[in-house]
């Protein structure tokens, strides 16, 4: 099956059109590369062809490389060198496009090649584009252009790093290579990623016009011309020296040196800038080969890309259940979570009925949604009309009977079982029998709450994370009675809101909170043990956590922690494990340091709520011990406490699929993204090493680090999680 087709028009322009059959979007495969190369060579050697235009037969240009290509490259290669050779094949094809029959040694120009990007063109799509002589983009506001590779643990390895750094210079290219920014066409033009933006209907004709009028100067790439100087300077001239010294520091600070791909990308740029172009490309391929075989990169690709997509496509959605057909969504509670859910639902096109018995709360919720939308408008992310239409899709009411006709209601009121129970009883009376009732509880067991609804099989937990607008993950919590159709509908709703769902079984705190609470407690407990608070917070950053445990508890409030601890103690009775963390939390909360909400917690805040620094008074309450632990010990404790808990949820069948465990960990609570998630982390470390580390921590710090039974079983069976 051909991915490309070829034709020559009367004016002598050959158009190579990419149109993968049976696919919604073009993806590059080995076959595709070979066809593209064949057609390029045909066009170059055909004397009637004056110029070449690359175009797409789809709505977009390409979603990039079929990651199977990278997978097969790794699987079929026994050494880094094999991977390198595979990558060099791609480089030869792209260099052939760039030279198009010309020869940089003699200065002979080849044939002009323009690319017509009608829509999104990312990854290898942009790497093909930057190999041509002219990048012409349709003014399509839906299109994204650029190199997002870094976001999945690799870096642009198809010449994108080398070419973009030479095209823009280190400073201008950095946000695209190292942060994976993929701007809209007009922004891409301003940034220098593309050469022209034209109206969509003129795209192909403009590309043809360009190739027919191109001069030999247009066709020879700047880096193939004599005397080429890299914009912004190379590492050892005065301008470049400062940029490179700064770039390494910037990346080190932002990534805590946890992402080998970022380091490889900046090294590729640094080393490449001191080399002639073809050697720079070879050097890029060497770094790329090293990254491709790096376990962290493999784990990141699998979790952040492959498995996330798999889950979003419905891998865990119960089969053979009808698709959700929903027009109106009811949301009860206009607090931060409720108003957030209402907003994202309205943004997805649903009509929303937002109910709160308290008029003030309702007004506040409305104001919150409005201010977020206004901010999006001010930042150019949304038109005024769109913001208006979103707010208009939400009906605000203080009367629960407004939910009368809803087939799907999500409760998001205060985390109190009695209040929730009362709401469920009232709602059950108002809505029709087939209405799905969901709770956005983050801490209360679904099985307890389901006692208050009339149809427990139509009851499910849908746990959104805060802030709802930004957080990608949603946990769907099944109770034993929840039926498949209910789970499917919850799943479909989450997908409609463009979030990533994982489906877990009921347990106290479900999956995400069950793992993050021990993380926070571990950090807080260390304060009680006399660890330097700064050491705790920095160690957390060094394992790649977005927030240190002390900052996190300040954000979520110590009051909540006291509330959870008290409730857990009541619920578990004698089973509750007394711990250092409670001692610290109760002490701080007792003197009114409740976290951000009281402008005082482990940190200090100014009157506007800006976080200033760790509160020095902690040292008086919990004097730092003279014998501080190594940062490795702190890192191990903070990481393993989460890993052990995650494994226990799998062992206890709360979590069903390790892919959900890894995706959920990274998108739910920001677990060390470089690792690919807790289960990938264990596989990378090895089961034996993980058990050894757990045992060592257990000996030093207590039973909570005991290696879970599942690990011991896996060790005996020589199994891995993946």
């Amino acid at each position, binding site marked *: 099956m051909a991915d490309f087709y070829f034709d020559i028009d009367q004016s002598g322009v050959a158009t190579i059109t990419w149109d993968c059959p049976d696919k919604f979007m073009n993806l590059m495969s080995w076959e595709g590369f070979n066809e593209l190369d064949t057609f390029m060579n045909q066009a170059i050697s055909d004397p009637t062809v004056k110029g070449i235009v690359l175009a797409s037969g789809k709505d977009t240009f390409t979603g990039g490389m079929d990651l199977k290509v990278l997978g097969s490259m790794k699987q079929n290669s026994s050494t880094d060198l094999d991977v390198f050779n595979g990558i060099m094949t791609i480089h030869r094809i792209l260099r052939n496009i760039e030279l198009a029959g010309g020869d940089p040694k003699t200065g002979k120009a080849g044939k002009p090649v323009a690319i017509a990007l009608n829509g999104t063109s990312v990854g290898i799509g942009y790497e093909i584009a930057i190999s041509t002589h002219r990048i012409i983009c349709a003014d399509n506001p839906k299109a994204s252009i650029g190199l997002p590779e870094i976001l999945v643990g690799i870096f642009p390895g198809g010449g994108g790093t080398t070419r973009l750094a030479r095209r823009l210079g280190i400073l201008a290219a950095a946000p695209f290579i190292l942060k994976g920014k993929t701007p809209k066409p007009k922004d891409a033009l301003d940034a220098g990623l593309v050469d022209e933006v034209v109206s969509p209907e003129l795209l192909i004709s403009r590309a043809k016009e360009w190739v027919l009028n191109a001069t030999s100067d247009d066709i020879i790439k700047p880096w193939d011309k004599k005397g080429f100087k890299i914009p912004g300077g190379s590492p050892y001239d005065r301008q470049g020296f400062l940029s490179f010294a700064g770039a390494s*520091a910037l990346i080190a600070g932002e990534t805590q040196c946890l992402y080998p791909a970022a380091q490889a990308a900046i090294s590729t740029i640094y080393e490449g800038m001191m080399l002639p172009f073809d050697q720079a490309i070879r050097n890029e391929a060497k770094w790329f080969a090293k990254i491709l075989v790096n376990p962290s990169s493999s784990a990141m690709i699998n979790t952040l890309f492959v498995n996330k997509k798999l889950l979003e496509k419905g891998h865990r959605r119960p089969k053979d259940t009808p698709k959700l057909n929903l027009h109106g969504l009811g949301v009860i509670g206009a607090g931060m979570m409720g108003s957030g859910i209402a907003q994202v639902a309205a943004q997805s096109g649903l009509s929303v009925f937002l109910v709160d018995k308290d008029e003030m709360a309702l007004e506040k919720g409305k104001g919150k949604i409005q201010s977020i939308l206004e901010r999006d408008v001010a930042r150019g992310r949304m038109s005024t009309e769109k913001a208006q239409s979103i707010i208009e899709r939400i009906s605000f009411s203080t009367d629960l009977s407004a939910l009368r006709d809803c087939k799907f209601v999500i409760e998001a009121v205060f985390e109190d079982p009695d209040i929730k129970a009362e709401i469920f009883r009232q709602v059950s009376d108002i809505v029709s029998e087939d209405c799905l009732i969901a709770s956005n509880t983050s801490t209360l067991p679904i099985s307890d709450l389901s006692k208050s609804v009339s149809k427990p099989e139509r009851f499910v937990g849908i746990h959104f994370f805060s802030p709802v607008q930004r957080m990608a993950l949603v946990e769907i919590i099944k109770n034993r009675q929840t039926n498949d159709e209910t789970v499917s509908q919850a799943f479909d709703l989450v997908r409609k809101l463009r979030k990533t769902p994982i489906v877990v079984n009921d347990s106290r705190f479900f999956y995400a909170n069950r793992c993050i609470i021990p993380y926070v407690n571990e950090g807080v407990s260390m304060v009680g043990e006399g660890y330097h608070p700064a050491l705790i917070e920095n160690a957390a950053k060094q394992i790649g956590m977005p927030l240190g445990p002390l900052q996190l508890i300040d954000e979520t409030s110590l009051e909540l922690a006291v509330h959870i601890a008290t409730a857990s103690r009541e619920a578990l009775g004698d089973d509750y494990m007394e711990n250092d963390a409670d001692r610290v939390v109760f002490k701080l909360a007792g003197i009114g340091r409740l976290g951000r909400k009281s402008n005082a917690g482990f940190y200090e805040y100014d009157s506007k709520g800006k976080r200033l620094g760790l509160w020095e008074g902690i040292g008086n309450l919990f004097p730092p011990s003279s014998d501080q632990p190594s*940062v490795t010990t702190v890192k191990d404790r903070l990481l393993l406490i989460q890993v052990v808990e995650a494994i226990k949820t799998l062992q206890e069948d709360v979590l069903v699929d390790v892919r959900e465990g890894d995706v959920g960990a990274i998108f739910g609570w920001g677990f060390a993204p470089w690792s690919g998630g807790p289960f990938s982390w264990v596989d990378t470390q090895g089961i034996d090493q993980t058990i050894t580390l757990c045992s060592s921590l257990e000996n030093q710090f207590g039973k909570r680090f005991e290696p879970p039974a599942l690990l011991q079983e896996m060790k005996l069976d020589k199994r891995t999680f993946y």
Partner: protein
Amino acid sequence: MEAFIYDSVRTPRGKGKKDGSLHEITSVWLSSFILNKLLERADIDPKTIDDLIWGNVTQVGEQGGCLARSAVLYSNLDDNIPGLAINRFCASGLEAVNLAANQIRGNAGTGYIAGGVEMLGRVPMGSDGAAMLVDPTIAMNHSIIPQGVSADLIATKYGFSRLDCDQYAVESQRRAEIAWKEKRFDKSVIPVVDDIGATLLEMDEHLRPDTDLAALEGLDPSFKQMGEVMPGFDKVALLKYPELEKINHVHHAGNSSGIVDGAAALLIGSREFGEINDLTPRARIVTTAKSGSDPTIMLTGPIPASEKALKQASLNISDIDLFEVNEAFSSVPLRFIQHYDLDPEMVNVNGGAIAMGHPLGATGAIILGTLLDELERTNKTLGLATLCVAGGMGVTTIIENL
């Protein structure tokens, strides 16, 4: 075989700027000027010199291409003397002396001239590049940060406040002024007179004896912006020092070493060398040492280097009568004093680089000469000179006044 110091000379230090008094002469001219003065004063047979070992940090342009050989050819030294240019950053001048001494001790020659030059106003610091700052593989794997941020890191980690550093700087100025007034440098300092007989510089011109705490209080910290904002070196530092919440940026132009031009040279030889040239040794080189340590905090090298030196010589820190610890930044000598719990009255008694300036490649030779002069003046025996070095190194020399 033992190695001895027979003589020591230096130029006054000129401001390392376009309006500095030495700016109009070249690095090789200044090198050969001080070499010629040493030759004249010692009145030796040039043929008895085995080599010139010349420290210099920024070896590009006029300071590039083995400046030592250029200096041999330019000066009155015999063309049969080869010339070796060396770079151990700020300790190059002292390392040159140590290399010379150790060749003599190892029977590889009997007479050396060692020292160094740096004309920071003519060849700017950093203009020779440095992989460790810009190659991401080194910079990221080892958390490399600029020296000033490292100096602030020392201050933060070891508890030196802005006031501590400023007080140290004021004291350096006060001591340097007294030393000049009392002509304590007269033995070594040779006014720079150009080829037509005009005197270019007679005394260190970076001095600001009127400096007081109030004057320093108003200065902005020099490394705060690069540390906290762009590109954010503090975060890099905390990767290595996670026990700190943040870096206190305490250093500024007034409590850091001055940027100057200057040169210094010492005559190092065996006992036999002295006899042949009818010279009396002024000091014995007791021991020399160098160390490598964490490149992030970078400037704590004087401690491990001195540990090594003391151990080699079977000495205790309390055996040392006088110290010269290069004042790259206030926190460097402060940390040295703190580590060994020294009496500050024994360290840098005639001021240092904060007051008089730090001509990188020459400084090691300058402070060793200053140490020798002061041991002689006060009739003391053992002296220790040490410098912190970029990249996490340290160099120490212990001498005995004879």
